[in-house]
């Protein structure tokens, strides 16, 4: 039995243990996922603590995005369990995860090119009148969108512009803003800085840091840029071939060490392949 399933653990006598158990806001146990013949995840065990920023590192196709899409309710896992604040959950949809305070920035940004900035910011959580009829409060959403973007100092030339007409970085900023606007408890950020210039990167890094330090938001950040990761994260998990291969506090490691680790795996594979060929 895992600690999260057992109420006894939470009531355990030592204060440290209590803290540790209740401090885990998100936990995955044995997650697997295949897409046809492709095995994307082979058994992911990981946990995320309150206010912690966890970086996910891995090669292309390692399964990072798949993991995030399972944690946010987009994909159901094939096997394995997810716990949010100690309770086992089973998401039937993205909306289920959202209702528990899990917000996501997808790698593909999930913006609709034909909708305006404001419409994208409020996509599927539109403010409406008359309940079920769903009459849009377009003016109010537009104003709130404008205010929020100004608040976080994201510069978009025109709030009524269609997402299509924005630059790649601007689009990414919109996608990030959409997630951060929601007072989420848990943020899942899949390469949130990939298309951003230096100024915008710094802006988003500051925003994200502020959310974790001052609001206690927990996050998982995927990024291929180690400098960003070391700046942002408290802890790093390396995913290799659908498994967590390394779990390391950032303060206990360096960019060089991580690079060596990532490359050495590749070297090992290369060597193994060579051996196979020679036999």
């Amino acid at each position, binding site marked *: 039995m895992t600690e999260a399933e057992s109420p006894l653990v939470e009531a355990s006598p030592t204060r440290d243990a209590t803290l540790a158990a209740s401090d885990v806001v998100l936990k995955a146990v044995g997650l697997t996922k295949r897409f046809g013949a492709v095995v994307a995840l082979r058994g992911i065990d990981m946990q995320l603590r309150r206010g912690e920023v966890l970086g996910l590192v891995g090669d292309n196709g390692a399964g990072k995005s798949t993991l995030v899409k399972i944690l946010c309710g987009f994909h159901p896992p094939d096997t394995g369990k997810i716990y949010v604040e100690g309770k086992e959950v089973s998401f039937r949809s993205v909306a289920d995860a959202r209702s528990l305070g899990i917000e996501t920035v997808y790698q593909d940004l*999930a913006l*609709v090119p*034909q*909708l305006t900035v404001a419409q994208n910011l409020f*996509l*599927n959580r*539109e403010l409406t009148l008359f309940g079920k009829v769903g*009459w849009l409060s377009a003016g109010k959403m537009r104003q709130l969108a404008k205010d929020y973007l100004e608040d976080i100092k994201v510069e978009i030339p*025109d709030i009524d512009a269609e997402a299509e007409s924005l630059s790649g970085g601007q689009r990414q900023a919109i996608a990030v803003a959409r997630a951060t606007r929601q007072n989420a408890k848990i943020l899942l950020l899949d390469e949130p800085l990939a298309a951003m210039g230096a100024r915008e990167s710094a802006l988003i890094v500051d925003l994200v840091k502020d959310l974790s330090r001052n609001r206690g938001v927990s996050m998982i950040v995927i990024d291929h840029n180690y400098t960003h990761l070391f700046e942002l994260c408290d802890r790093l998990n390396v995913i290799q071939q659908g498994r967590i291969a390394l779990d390391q506090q950032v303060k206990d490691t360096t960019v060089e060490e991580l690079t060596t680790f990532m490359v050495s795996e590749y070297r090992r594979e290369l060597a193994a392949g060579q051996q196979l060929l020679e036999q």
Partner: protein
Amino acid sequence: MRQTPAPKGRGSVAYRLVQRAMQQRELTVVLVTLFVIIYFGSVNSAFYTTANIITVCQYLASIAVIAFGEVLILSLGEIDLSAGAVYLSSPWFLYLFWHSGMPIGWAIVASMACCAGVGMINGLITVWLNVSSLIVTLAVNYVLFGFVLIESNDIQVDMPGQTGHFSIIFGVGAWSTTLWAAVMMLAIWALLKRTRFGLHVTATGGNLLAAAESGIRVRRVKVWCFIIISAASGLIGILDAIRIGSINPGSSGLDTVLPGIVAAVVGGTALTGGRGTIVGAALGAIFLGVLEDGFNLIGVNANWFYLAEGVMILVAMVANTQLGIVARRFRR
């Protein structure tokens, strides 16, 4: 940087008016429709008589309603080729219910339900069995046609419900079908442009994955749109049949649905999803209606009719894309 002054002339009222106009996707269809109206009006003064206007409106009401439905469907990135067959078979549903002893009012309700059912089948097969809606609705088009042929034995029948106030409201009144079409236009416009559902239609057609990732139930949205177009086509089909007085099982429905799709697309709705305009579709239907009526009025040889219509549609669409290129410079 932001304070760069606007180039001279760009701030003028005239420029801003042009800019406003150019930003409307419906601009081309407004222009070509105005053009054909003015042209036919100047060639034959009978064009502007009330009787002729009623004829045009009665002709285009069904095209318009099917076009409104197609705007929803095209906005989703799907297509519905069965709407014409639904339009033609719904009066047969009505006739069969009525023939079996149902009061006419209930027969209308029951046949509308059948049409909605057809739409639901279109939608469910499309989204759950992952078959292209083009093929699904084409197949359903033929199924409905076959059903009508079998049930009617290929014999024309008189429509029930042709007397009294009832008939005036449901089709027989000179403006009845036009008013019904106008009401449906308002309803579908509001649905698409002013409600959450409509926004989700645009999102689903604009970027299916993004819509799904945002938690929009894209399949449900699609099925509902197929239900709406079928119900709307079925209703206008019943009204037209009551207006005309008889129904005959002669055509497969493609000749009815294609003008609806043309009206929608000429009006500025994208075939690729994410962009739909109901106002444009109404104008597109007027364009086609005026074209048909105008050629009749000026007595174009029947052999030339389709050729002329085809050329005009091409002209309208080419104008659409060309103007679109110019208009992009004026868009923000």
